């Protein structure tokens, strides 16, 4: 039997391994920062009030990707990340990742405290495994520490999935959590149908930023593989 997996769902990792993200539909990436030159690749730039604290000249805000295929992530980071001659970032900036999945049932599996806790455990492990330094934006965000330009109000801990998933509006306080389940949000599009990971910071290094995005995709994919949709609930009654 030949297992057909779309090429757009296959990612070749830096160690040569192939990662199949068959459960994932599309990816959206938001890079916040100061852009010396605004990228021109599969996305658009807009201002963002939470981005602050830069003394250099440039465009402050975020570069928001279109809904891209999983195998386009690396190229997107290479061509748009605000680092080097293209721009810079600080602790106020987030590297948000939107993920849409192919099945509503899978979305519901992710919209649980169990997944939230699992994700945070894995995200901590990612920090340790990649030797992310203590006191950096990565850990400050996880620990909700207000350091320098970073305001933890925009990225709080805790699971608020059910409340978030009911909102049609993007600009509501509930979204400012590590994971924002913005399934029904009708902002710039008919309905987002994504979950947004707001906890990643902007890393200085493109390779670590790519790794972080791929790690989130991997956590989602592996969790869904290990947790197939529950069997139907059947209720038998009589009158």
């Amino acid at each position, binding site marked *: 039997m030949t297992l057909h997996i779309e090429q757009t769902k296959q990612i070749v990792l830096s160690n040569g391994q192939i990662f199949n993200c068959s459960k994932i539909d599309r990816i959206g990436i938001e890079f916040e920062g100061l852009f010396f030159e605004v990228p021109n690749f599969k996305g658009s730039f807009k201002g963002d009030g939470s981005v602050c604290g830069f003394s250099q000249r440039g465009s402050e805000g975020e570069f928001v990707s279109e809904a891209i295929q999983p195998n386009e992530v690396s190229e997107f980071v290479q061509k748009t990340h605000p680092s080097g001659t293209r721009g810079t970032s600080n602790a106020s900036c987030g590297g948000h990742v939107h993920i849409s999945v192919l099945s509503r049932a899978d979305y519901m599996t992710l919209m649980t405290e169990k997944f939230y806790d699992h994700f945070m455990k894995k995200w901590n492990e990612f920090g340790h495994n990649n030797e992310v330094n203590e006191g950096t934006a990565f850990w400050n965000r996880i620990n909700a520490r207000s350091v320098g330009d970073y305001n933890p109000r925009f990225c709080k801990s805790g699971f608020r999935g059910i409340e978030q998933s009911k909102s049609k509006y993007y600009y509501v306080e509930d979204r400012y959590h590590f994971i924002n389940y913005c399934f029904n949000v009708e902002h710039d599009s008919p309905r987002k149908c994504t979950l947004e990971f707001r906890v990643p910071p902007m890393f200085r290094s493109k390779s670590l930023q790519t790794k972080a995005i791929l790690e989130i995709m991997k956590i989602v994919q592996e969790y869904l593989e290990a947790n197939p949709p529950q069997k139907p609930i059947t209720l038998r*009654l009589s009158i």
Partner: protein
Amino acid sequence: MSIQEQQIPKFKRQSAIKIELGIAKSDEGLRLTVKSDKLTKLAVKLVDKYMLESDEGNRISSAFHEVRKALSFTNESYYVDHSGYLTDSSNHEKINKLITTKKIPNMRFLVTENQIAEIIIDDVFGDPEIQEWIRLFSKFVGMMKKLNKGFGLLE
């Protein structure tokens, strides 16, 4: 009376309406399935009874009000229902909206001539919400049972 007839006593239990509610998370959303042979008949009779009681100015219990609201017919939908509205996409859309906005297991979808009614709500739900669906569905079925017993609608 023949022996054969005597062996089939008319237990009240024989007229019981058996209901099976299925709730499943599917690729398209939340799939609700109801299998029942006489539930539709009871639902229609309850609404007819409600209208009769209202017209006659009789006192209507809060339980009856609540069941009527859950069934939430309008005159228009009442007639459309009989022609099998579940296949009509515009009505399907309306039901989706009703269910998601009212956040109750609106039981209009029971009213079809088919013995199996199915609806898929194109939205995502958390486990506590699904539990609440089950609780409310059981509550409404319990209320319908009491009303049926009181009015003897399916005797």
